């Protein structure tokens, strides 16, 4: 059979199915203009294709049907039995098509009765079984005769072409489409109905498959690059670089196919807020910013509900009634502001309201009531610790407040949803000023940033999102390991975290003495995992383990590293299961001690610097080795990275944020510190002062590298998280040198 006809048959059958559905809909609701338009258009398409392929019967039947529908579109009341007759016309077309597909050509047959019926109806008469008059179409004044079935008047043709010129119809490429739409209106409709002829539908599974393959390709590329780096073979370098660039672009394009704007997850919010405002008698402005920021559809799905929940919380509990707001000297209309923006490989979303803020007294009461803390503990907690309480499982002030939501209802669920996809959530609140929830989520789940650690003579990968902090323990470290009963634990600011030894858990000799501790948190359970070394950070593709290994709770999967070796991926949940609980008495004592320390105003020497924009920054002097002013020409920059030649080796210079610009002449002030085992430095713009002050962090920060805000010398100052930069520096070193990290004694 002719390819042209085969294609036409496929399309015609699809169209007929749609017409069936639409006709039924039209019958039920005769004023459904859109349904009628669609039927008309599809029938018209069939007629056009029939004419083009020389299928006279099909063309004639379709034309008669179209004429009737055209009349109805023009406002004629629908004569009784119309739908039935049009349906039989559709059936007739099916018969003709069946003959066509069997014979390869149109079979003979008499359609005059059916066409007669259709024409009768077109003239407004009820359907009869009388023999039909001669087929007469619309009278065309320019031709001076009636149009024959399938013919289109010149005026219509003209109009159609004019409409088509504005936006070239995609129809030109496919055979089954009309050669010329009958009316300008129909043509225009066609274009609005199919707005993006430039897009095609692809199954999600196809995209998933592509994503997997590309992830593999990325890993293979990493492997190749590493091999080449070790061999130093120049001849491969150029093609490899090209391969590397193309792979990167390919990865990006494939990722893009799965990306959707975050606004998709916000769509229901305006309506939700409007309804809530009505129910609660409040005036609320919902401001959405950065809807266009895109993220993986899988991630998008998992944050949809948490977002809705948090916005509902803001509307219900964050914002006050107009009277309360007036009394507080605020505008009557409260504002809920959602914003989203990209930051590195993550998307940061903020939900801010200008309401009353969290009621910390009430939360304290509730915590005591729920048995989450004793009265003394609750009173001893810092503001931010109290804010964190609303994320605690089982903490809820629901029911007592309203039936819409409770401040804190299910915030633990929100938190675990966010953490499940490797995200972080933080809450800040100022009494009377409002509250802000900051959520940081990865753009995609396909490739995970992982920390590669060593334990028991073997390497393991840990999803980096699960690691909150990295500290050193052992002689000469600030962090003490304490033993209570059989539980080993480490003191971390005001908290005690139980420790598990990774090597010991895996059946090897536990690590003695010097070690790293990864501080992890799963569902409010904070614990430390002792490892012998921190090797690298690397992008990994998570692969499932074979079924015979799936029962081991410590692993979530395996991955192939850049050097080709397979490493197991540790499961934070599994590790949490191994970490014991801190005896309540010990925790209470620690809290109290921390509180007393705070109250006594434990004074520290703090270095105050200016770096990047915003507030001045503070660093605990105990964490710094020394300050240095390096000559700008001693600093080597390579893209985003900078390094300083120091004692014969390149040491990384880290920046507080990407916006910071290093000096190109004169001297660059640097804070030199020893991260893990390497010296590295943090670039600052200006060193302001060293002051002795208590360092109480009031506002926790969501920004990486900043612990939070504290008041230093009477000014709000951001306290720098040196652990973060230590990790960053370590990763830089590892990247620069491959995994063959030299161990230079610090």
């Amino acid at each position, binding site marked *: 059979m002719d390819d042209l006809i085969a294609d036409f048959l496929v399309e015609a059958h699809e169209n007929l199915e749609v017409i069936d559905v639409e006709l039924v809909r039209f019958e039920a609701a005769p004023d459904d203009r859109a349904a009628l338009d669609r039927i008309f258009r599809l029938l018209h398409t069939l007629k056009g294709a029939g004419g083009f392929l020389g299928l006279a019967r099909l063309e004639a039947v379709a034309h008669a049907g179209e004429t009737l529908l055209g009349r109805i579109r023009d406002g004629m009341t629908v004569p009784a039995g119309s739908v039935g007759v049009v349906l039989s016309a559709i059936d007739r077309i099916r018969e003709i098509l069946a003959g066509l597909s069997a014979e390869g050509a149109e079979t003979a047959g008499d359609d005059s009765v059916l066409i007669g019926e259709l024409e009768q109806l077109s003239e407004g008469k009820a359907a009869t079984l009388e023999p039909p008059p001669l087929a007469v179409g619309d009278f065309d004044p320019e031709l001076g005769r009636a149009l024959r079935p399938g013919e289109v008047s010149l005026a219509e043709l003209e109009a159609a072409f004019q409409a088509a010129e504005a936006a070239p119809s995609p129809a030109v490429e496919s055979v089954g489409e009309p050669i010329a739409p009958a009316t300008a209106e129909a043509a225009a409709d066609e274009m609005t109905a199919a707005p993006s002829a430039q897009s095609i539908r692809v199954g999600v599974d196809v995209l998933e498959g592509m994503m997997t393959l590309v992830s593999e390709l990325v890993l*293979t590329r990493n492997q190749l690059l590493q091999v080449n780096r070790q061999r130093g073979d120049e001849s491969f370098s150029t093609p490899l670089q090209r391969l590397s660039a193309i792979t990167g672009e390919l990865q990006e394009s494939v990722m893009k196919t799965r990306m959707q704007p975050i606004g998709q997850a916000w769509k229901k919010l305006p309506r939700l807020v409007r309804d809530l405002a009505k129910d609660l008698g409040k005036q609320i402005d919902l401001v959405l910013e950065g809807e266009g920021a895109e993220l993986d559809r899988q991630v998008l799905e998992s944050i949809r509900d948490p977002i809705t929940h948090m916005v509902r919380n803001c509307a219900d509990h964050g914002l006050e009634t107009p009277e309360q707001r007036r009394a507080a000297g605020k505008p009557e209309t409260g504002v809920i502001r959602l914003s989203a923006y990209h930051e590195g490989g993550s998307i940061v979303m903020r939900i801010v309201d200008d309401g009353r803020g969290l009621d910390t007294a009430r939360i304290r009461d509730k915590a005591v009531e729920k048995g989450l803390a004793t009265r003394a503990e609750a009173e001893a907690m810092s503001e931010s610790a109290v804010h964190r309480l609303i994320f605690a499982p089982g903490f809820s002030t629901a029911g007592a407040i309203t039936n819409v939501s409770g401040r804190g209802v299910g915030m633990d669920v929100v938190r675990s949803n966010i953490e499940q996809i490797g995200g972080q959530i933080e809450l800040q609140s100022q009494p009377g000023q409002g509250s802000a929830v900051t959520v940081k989520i990865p753009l995609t789940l396909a490739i995970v940033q992982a920390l590669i650690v060593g334990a028991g003579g073997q390497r393991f990968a840990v999803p980096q999102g699960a690691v909150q902090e990295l500290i050193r323990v052992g002689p000469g470290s600030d962090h003490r390991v304490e033993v209570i009963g059989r539980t080993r634990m480490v003191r971390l600011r005001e908290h005690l975290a139980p420790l598990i030894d990774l090597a010991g858990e895996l059946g*090897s000799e536990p690590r003695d003495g010097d070690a790293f501790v990864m501080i992890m948190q799963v569902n409010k359970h904070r614990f430390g995992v002792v490892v012998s070394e921190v090797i690298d950070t690397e992008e990994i593709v998570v*692969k499932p383990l074979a079924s*015979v290994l799936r029962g081991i709770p410590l692993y979530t999967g395996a991955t192939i590293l850049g050097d080709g070796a397979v490493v*197991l991926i540790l499961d934070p949940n599994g590790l949490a299961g191994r970490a014991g609980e801190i005896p309540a008495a010990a925790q209470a004592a620690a809290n109290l001690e921390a509180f007393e320390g705070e109250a006594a105003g434990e004074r520290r020497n703090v270095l105050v610097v200016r770096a990047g924009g915003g507030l001045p920054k503070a660093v605990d002097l105990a964490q710094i080795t020394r300050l240095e002013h390096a000559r700008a020409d001693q600093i080597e920059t390579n893209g985003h990275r900078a390094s300083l030649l120091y004692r014969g080796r390149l040491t990384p210079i880290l920046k507080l944020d990407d916006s910071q610009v290093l000096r190109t002449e004169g001297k660059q002030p640097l804070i030199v510190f020893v991260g893990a085992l390497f010296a590295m430095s943090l670039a600052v713009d200006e060193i302001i002062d060293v002051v002795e002050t208590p360092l109480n962090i009031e506002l926790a920060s969501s920004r990486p590298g900043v612990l939070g805000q504290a008041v230093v010398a009477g000014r709000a100052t951001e306290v720098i998280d040196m652990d973060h930069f230590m990790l960053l520096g370590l990763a830089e070193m590892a990247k620069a040198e491959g995994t063959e990290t030299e161990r230079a004694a610090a």
Partner: protein
Amino acid sequence: MSVVDYVTVRVGGHLFGIEALAIQDVFHPRNITPTPLSPPEILGVLNLRGRIVTALCVRCRLGLGQREPGRPEPKAVGMEVGGDNYGLVVDSVEEVVKLDPEQMIPPPDNLPARWAEIIQGVFRLPDTLMVVLDARRLITGVGQAVAA
């Protein structure tokens, strides 16, 4: 007479046959990453041309003891079971023999339990016996055999 191809492998001096159709490849199991806490028959995981393959020690599975030191490097027979890739680590891979399954003798009744479930039957070859392993059950039974 229908003929089936069997790949013969040697483990602890015994000759075993595995249906060739089930076998994807034969390779040297190198750079195995141990999987602590796994059943003892599992040697670990390795990277075979970008696939993660779980290496399984056939000696341990059959209770034939540790490999004697100084023997040549072991080989692995790769196969896919339930969507996962496995490598059965054996002492050596010998040849492919064509045999008529009709000639296969059912396994003797007095086999130890851990053998009985993974042995399909025995062929009497001119100079030796070849025990046919059910590779699928050899893999899926891992971990359960330990309890037995």
